[in-house]
């Protein structure tokens, strides 16, 4: 459980696993933070909450990570220590095989999460420009969630 940063010629990829969808989302977000800053201080910064809605599971993941990058720029804080509190959707926590939704475009998925925001002035952080769909994987395999996301840097 957790994340690892993976090699990518021009960019950075994060691979993560989790027991639940919420866990794997939060691990990917922690990977995004680690890709942005190598030395994250343990105690500084206030926690804040965010929520995201999207039309399917992958889009929810994409929009969650996109929202974190947006919030980083407008709050001037690096979001770290991610907790995904709730994910609601069709069979949100079931394994992928049983989740064949009839009309994914109209399904509403939603997520609430919290993170700790470290002021960018207090750390040496580099810019991750954007989350991408490139080679994105989000699968339920051997009783755990596995995910792979490439970030543009």
């Amino acid at each position, binding site marked *: 459980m957790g994340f690892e940063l993976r090699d990518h010629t021009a960019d950075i990829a994060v691979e993560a696993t989790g027991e639940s969808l919420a866990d794997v989302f939060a691990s990917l977000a922690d990977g995004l933070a680690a890709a942005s800053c190598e030395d994250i201080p343990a105690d500084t910064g206030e926690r804040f909450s965010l929520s995201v809605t999207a*039309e399917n599971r992958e889009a929810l993941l994409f929009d969650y990570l996109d929202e974190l990058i947006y919030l980083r720029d407008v709050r001037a804080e690096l979001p770290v220590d991610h907790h995904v509190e709730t994910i609601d959707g069709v069979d949100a926590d079931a394994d992928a095989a049983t989740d064949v939704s009839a009309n994914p475009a109209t399904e509403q998925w939603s997520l609430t999460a919290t993170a700790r925001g470290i002021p960018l002035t207090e750390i040496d952080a580099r810019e991750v420009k954007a989350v991408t769909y490139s080679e994105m994987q989000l699968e339920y395999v051997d009783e755990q969630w596995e995910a792979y996301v490439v970030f543009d840097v």
Partner: protein
Amino acid sequence: MSNVTFDADGITLEQVREYVWEIPQEGDMRVPARVLASEALLEEIKEDKTLEQITNTTHLPGITTNAICMPDGHQGYGFPVGGVGALDAEHGCLSPGAVGYDINCGVRMMRTNLTYDELKGQEAELVDALFANIPSGLGGGGVVEVGVDTVDEILARGVDWALENGHAVEEDLLHCEDEGMREGADPEKVSQKAKDRGKNQIGSLGSGNHFLEVQRVTDVFDDEVGEAFGLEEDQIVVLIHCGSRGLGHQTCNDYLRKIEQQHQGLLDQLPDKELAAAPAGSQLAEDYYGAMNAAINFAWVNRQLIMHRTRQVFERVFDRSWESMDMHLLYDVAHNIAKKEMHTVEGEERELYVHRKGATRAFPAGHPEVPKAYRDVGQPVIIPGSMGTGSYVLRGGENSMDLTFGSTAHGAGRLMSRTQAKNEFWGGDVQDELEEQEQIYVKAQSGATVAEEAPGVYKDVDEVVRVSDELGIGDKVARTFPVCNIKG
């Protein structure tokens, strides 16, 4: 077609002629793909997913003649970096993925009349002053921080806004593509989120591979064109590489998601979701074109503000006016962009959305879209190398319209991932070596950035430029070598 082939682990390229390789059309490919490279460069290109990605690009509706990979091509997402795709503007599509996240990421070069000898001894002072005054890194703010109303003006008017507000002179506009203002920019099509990200970043380098570099001209290969560009040996120039910052990144993702929601049918036909495209003539294609053009204007203003601030830094360090140091813009080129252009295809004039992602427009002498100042010699093309190697100034070559829809390479192209770079290099060592052995002064927000951008992580820019020159798509004019480099 010659009988020479190159086997790249399952993908066979057929040599059309020297430096031109073709992946033949098969399956759902709409046209063949081409790679412009020497065998030495192909050996590097085949190491990642570049060839698979350029092949995937041929699936885009309306793709014309070939999808083309430039000599510096490397793996991107969807479309490779170093990719050129001309898509029919009536029956094809417009692809945010094929423009890239950093809309109008690009390079500009400013001349000076200083010589390297005049600058020597002041490198440390200059690099410190530049680093202190040019915003860089994450959360470093911008030269100006404005409200959303002003962002709208910048999006609509580009460098004209900078001129009115004292950040530019008239001559700057005359030496920028489209005179620094893209027609058809529609600020209303740029989301509030994108504007909120951009408003505190106007006039900032960002981080990653973006930088500002003071350089000396080491070689002028073509005296006549060199003179037209105002370049001579030993002269000091300034190169600025950055893009549209958070505003452009957000705009790209906003439209990728809209395409996913509104044009799933088209998306399902494509082998990679990152190639997401809106059909030509659709409302979404119109909206994205308006938003992208606005982001293009934003990036031009970004580079303009950094350049103008650099003039002020030089004034303080050298204690004279920037005008007396003749600090004028040579040219500004975009290397992540899609533009509606007219091209001759099999004898017929056609309007195409020419997508250049990690590729530079390289129009030849006489082309009406080359600014008047350079029309007799061809459009300047600026190709940055890594911080330990040279950069190049080229001019659009006479074969570019036939071979590459008027395009050439954009840089050295990465060879090594950032993670690998950090394992092989230590930022402090790289910095010390550059200063002691090459007299290059580097200053960065983070040591990790220096390691990730170490000279060894890039392809050989000399070879990239040699191939461009041999093909006649971008001809060598001058070479420069770093003196001071600042980055995020």
